[in-house]
């Protein structure tokens, strides 16, 4: 059983056993899971007598694990040194240089930036701590810093090489380095950073450490180049999709990689696009206020950029061709009624009133997810800039983001529709399994980078991360939002509806790594997920104890009790925030919650039928997941009899009215703070 290791993290075992368990737990750490990192920190904290063994295990793990798993492991190290401190700082400090630099050489640039930030925090005291000393002493961090500065210099050189060869490859003589077009839009260069490449965040405390977009475009591009390896001479430029390192790669990859479209088909496509651009420009000159032309033009230019800068797999090329063919058709001379707008749109991208809502966004021409996907691929290569001179100042409408992030299936494009259905490419990509159905916040709009917190734990390994963001606030996704025309008739049941499948996957959020249950990525969903992960953790812990103690099948419930019992939703009371903050985190939600008084339902059938002697009523039975048994709520055993705690308190006025309901007896549930949190339930 894969999970059993957690339950073996018992106290007082020999060091090598602890280390072995720790190592196994680390192996399962494939993403920046706040939950897992917290757990590992707690374990480190509770086993300081094995600190040497644990730190060795962690060091070795960082050394040996695949590049994709190195960052989460570093977060563990970071969390341990900050939350536990000595003796771990001592043990990790010894070889921090090699631990850090060896990993740095193997990971991609996004991870490197995380590591840079982490290193920065190591030179400072732990925030909020009374200890004013840095996390690691300067003699530990300085050599690393020096090495990194050297590395950066050589990387910049490599990058310039890369750009030169890139330019030659493209053979267009376009000025490359000018970041002008993006400067012309409200999109800061940093926002171009495709969300794909942003590893999910970690503890909320790290959100302060996120990186401002680099100050100049060149350095930015450099950072986007995932191929550069630290300390190595420059790599040959690569135009291909860079495969994320590590084994937990996406299932998209087999489809995404290794295909080349025949050159000539690309050439045709390129010239088609060029023709379209020319036509659109002409049209644009005639109707400068027609936003749909602007939009189309910008989309075409984007497409041109994408096509010129990377190789797409043939199926995508085919999809784009279809799209272009439709656009060509649509741009055939068509009668256009020209209504001059009352106010011409501002000619320059000054912060203007948002364009009218009906104006399709750039990305909606292609489908926002599709564009994001293309741009994500683009990120593998340095960013060649679109031809600045030809771009009319077009502004991505900011409300792209405010639009529901899921576009319901658009009505099928009928032949009479002059403009092709903007979603069809998107839908085709989805149908082809290239894209899950929920596009993320489009990467190429003026959207600020997602707060890292919203990505916490939401990106499972093996998924294309940006697309599985789900619409916020949808706890139980009402299907009403999705066109669902299925009826229980043979003909209707036979029609495949790929868009509906996402209701069982992406639209439900991201899955729990333990059991696969999905949770929305909104606040509520994250809270639930944390509580849920916490539940897994506690179950694993308690299973060992239960195994020792011996356990048995319970009697089934009686009819009346069963009718009255409820499968409760867990958010009544969660311990989420508690453990989520990890040790040392101050806020405790549960401290403010009244603790509920309850008793295990007696196994003895005679007692099981007892009623409260005071009010003569039966007890309310609930399944208490924490205790893993049926309990009577508000129950208290006095001598041989069981009373409602509230009745008893009322009758005896013992020490204060409502307090009795709150002040529970000693936690039945164990020592961990989070375990005393009251009712959770079976829905976990």
């Amino acid at each position, binding site marked *: 059983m894969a999970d059993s290791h957690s339950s073996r993290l018992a106290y007082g075992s020999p060091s090598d056993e602890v280390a072995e368990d720790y190592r196994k737990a680390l192996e399962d750490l494939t993403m920046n899971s706040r939950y897992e990192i917290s757990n590992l920190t707690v374990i480190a904290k509770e086993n300081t007598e094995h600190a040497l063994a644990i730190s060795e295990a962690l060091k070795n793990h960082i050394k040996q694990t695949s590049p994709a798993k190195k960052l989460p492991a570093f977060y563990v190290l970071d969390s341990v040194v900050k939350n536990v401190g000595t003796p771990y700082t001592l043990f990790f400090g010894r070889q921090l240089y090699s631990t850090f630099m060896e990993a740095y050489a193997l990971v991609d640039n996004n991870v490197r930036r995380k590591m840079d930030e982490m290193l920065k925090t190591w030179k400072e005291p732990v925030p909020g701590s009374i200890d004013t000393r840095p996390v690691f002493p300067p003699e530990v961090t300085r050599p690393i810093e020096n090495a990194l500065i050297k590395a950066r210099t050589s990387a910049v050189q490599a990058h310039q090489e890369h750009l030169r060869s890139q330019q030659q490859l493209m053979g267009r003589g376009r000025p490359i380095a000018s970041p002008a077009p993006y400067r012309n839009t409200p999109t800061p260069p940093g926002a171009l950073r495709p969300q794909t490449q942003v590893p999910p965040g970690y503890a909320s405390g790290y959100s302060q450490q996120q990186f401002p977009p680099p100050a100049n475009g060149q350095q930015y591009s450099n950072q986007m180049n995932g191929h550069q390896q630290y300390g190595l001479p420059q790599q040959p430029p690569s135009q291909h999709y860079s495969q994320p390192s590590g084994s937990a790669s996406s*299932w998209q990859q087999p489809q995404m990689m290794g295909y080349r479209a025949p050159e000539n088909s690309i050439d045709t496509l390129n010239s088609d696009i060029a023709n379209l651009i020319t036509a659109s420009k002409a049209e644009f000159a005639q109707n400068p206020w027609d936003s749909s032309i602007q939009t189309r033009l910008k989309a075409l230019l984007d497409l041109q950029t994408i096509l010129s800068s990377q190789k797409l797999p043939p199926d995508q090329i085919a999809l784009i061709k279809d799209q272009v063919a439709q656009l060509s058709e649509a741009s055939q001379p068509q009668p256009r009624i020209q209504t001059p707008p009352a106010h011409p749109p501002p000619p320059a991208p000054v912060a203007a009133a948002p364009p009218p809502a009906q104006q399709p966004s750039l990305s909606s021409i292609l489908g926002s997810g599709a564009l994001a996907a293309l741009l994500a691929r683009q990120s593998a290569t340095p960013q060649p800039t679109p031809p600045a001179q030809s771009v009319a100042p077009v502004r991505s409408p900011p409300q792209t983001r405010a639009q529901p992030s899921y576009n319901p299936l658009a009505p099928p494009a009928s032949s009479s529709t002059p403009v092709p259905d903007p979603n069809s490419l998107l839908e085709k990509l989805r149908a082809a399994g290239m894209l*899950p159905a929920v596009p993320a916040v489009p990467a190429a709009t003026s959207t600020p980078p997602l707060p890292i917190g919203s990505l916490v734990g939401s990106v499972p390994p093996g998924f294309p991360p940006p697309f599985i963001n789900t619409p916020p606030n949808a706890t139980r996704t009402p299907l009403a939002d999705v066109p*669902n025309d299925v009826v229980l008739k043979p003909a209707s049941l036979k029609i495949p509806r790929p868009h509906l499948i996402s209701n069982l996957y992406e639209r439900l959020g991201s899955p729990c*790594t333990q059991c696969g249950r999905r949770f929305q990525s909104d606040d509520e969903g994250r809270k639930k997920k944390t509580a849920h992960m916490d539940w897994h953790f506690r179950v694993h812990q308690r299973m060992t104890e239960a195994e020792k103690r011996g356990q*048995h099948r319970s009697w*089934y419930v009686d009819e009346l009790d069963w*009718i009255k019992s409820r499968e409760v939703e867990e958010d009544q009371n969660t311990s989420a925030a508690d453990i989520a903050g990890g040790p040392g985190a101050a806020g405790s939600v549960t401290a403010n919650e009244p603790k509920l008084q309850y008793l295990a339902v007696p196994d003895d059938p005679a007692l099981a039928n007892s009623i409260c002697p005071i009010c003569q009523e039966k007890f309310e039975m609930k399944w208490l997941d924490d205790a893993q048994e049926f309990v009577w709520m508000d129950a208290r055993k006095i001598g041989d009899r069981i009373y409602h705690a509230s009745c008893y308190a009322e009758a005896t006025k013992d020490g204060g009215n409502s307090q009795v309901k709150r002040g529970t007896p000693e936690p039945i549930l164990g020592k961990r703070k989070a375990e005393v949190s009251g009712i959770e339930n079976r829905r976990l």
Partner: protein
Amino acid sequence: MAQLSGVAIPGLGQAAPTAASSAPAVAASVAVHELQANSEWRFEVAIGRSIEVKVLSGTAELFGTELALNHTYTFRGTKAAIFTWHGCRIEVTGACEEYTAEETPMVLYVNTHFALEKLRDDASKGKGESPRVLVVGPTNAGKTSLVKLLTAYAIRMGRQPMVINTDSREGLLSIPGSLTATPFASIIDVEQGWGSSPTSGPSPVPVKLPLCYYYGLPSPEDNTRLFKPVLTRMALAATSRLSDDQAIKDSGMIIDTPGVVSQGKGGYDLISHIVSEFSVNIILVLGSERLHSDMLRRFSGYRTTTGETITLVKLDKSGGCVDRDDEFMRQTREAAIREYFFGDPKRTLSPHTQQVNFDDATIYKIREANPMLASFLPGGEEDTELELYEKVEPSSMILNCILAVMYAALNDSQETIRDATVMGFVYVAEVDEKKRRMKILAPLNTRITDRPMIWGSWPEATMSLIG
């Protein structure tokens, strides 16, 4: 799709073949399968053997429950299938019979789910009733798998469907012979059939809470005079729960049936009985054209108690359905009984044994209806002279049998005992006719002699559960 079966606990009793080590042997074969989107990997693991499966990438689901990535699942003694909508790579350790199928009825099934979802949405807005779905079809048509799939999909979308098992051949969260009603609000344990009913300890997958009745015979037609009232009682309880549990009310019910009721006149009467007691408004007919037209004939123009018509639709049977032979079924039943007392590989349970004097035990043996009479009389009007149960004194006949301990009093009438729910099951491990006492295996150590016990012939006597 094939049906899942229970689990053998290695080392307990001679019926379990060689124990499969839970840790993969060093030499265990490891295979990686690439599944294309919309294909299904079907596998059979012999009873007493196990395999480990890990989803390396992509998405995969087993009977509708999504599998976690990079998590090792262990399957023992089962026939099942892993389906993928998006394509996936799975790593399989250990030997099993397996193949990959491209043709599946999954589009039909998932659309059925979404059609039900629509009805649920409508119902929660006050438009119509939530779906109460009956699944009928011949034996081994994949009824239970379909029920499980629809349940799992509903759970994933935040629903809390109530699952009703009317097939006493196999238990659902209980042992064979029982009929159960169970609300499902948490993930189904993919390794363990339907999961587990509550125990005194923690469970790695949330436990489910079945309400359990005892029929004690393999086929509803064996004694309709017993089956029908028990079923009616269960429908009453389920409906009561539904009426004041909004989450379940919105989600509706999914009802599994024994294959035998789909095989002719007597069975059809039982289907009618279930339809009327549970106010079924949707019937899914699996795999049989003839059954479909018979059902159409029977239920066209029919109105439920709430005045709805019945929607009837035929669904294709999955090519993955395999006949499960008698021996496999017998071992599966035995495994279910073991699991009830001893737990599963993830969690060992410790049952208790106690000595019970013959004179202290109140045992009612189910009378099997006279098959001659049954075939002459229409259902429900069998010989009513005879009592349902015969009060018996223990004898060596009862050795290795299962008794159902009922939530009833010793002096209750037979009808009251019949309608009572099951508190738990005990197993007769030894009978000493000379000393007039027997050794009873019970899940926990409480007195059982103050309640009446029912002795049925199903599940059949099992070889010694304890050595």
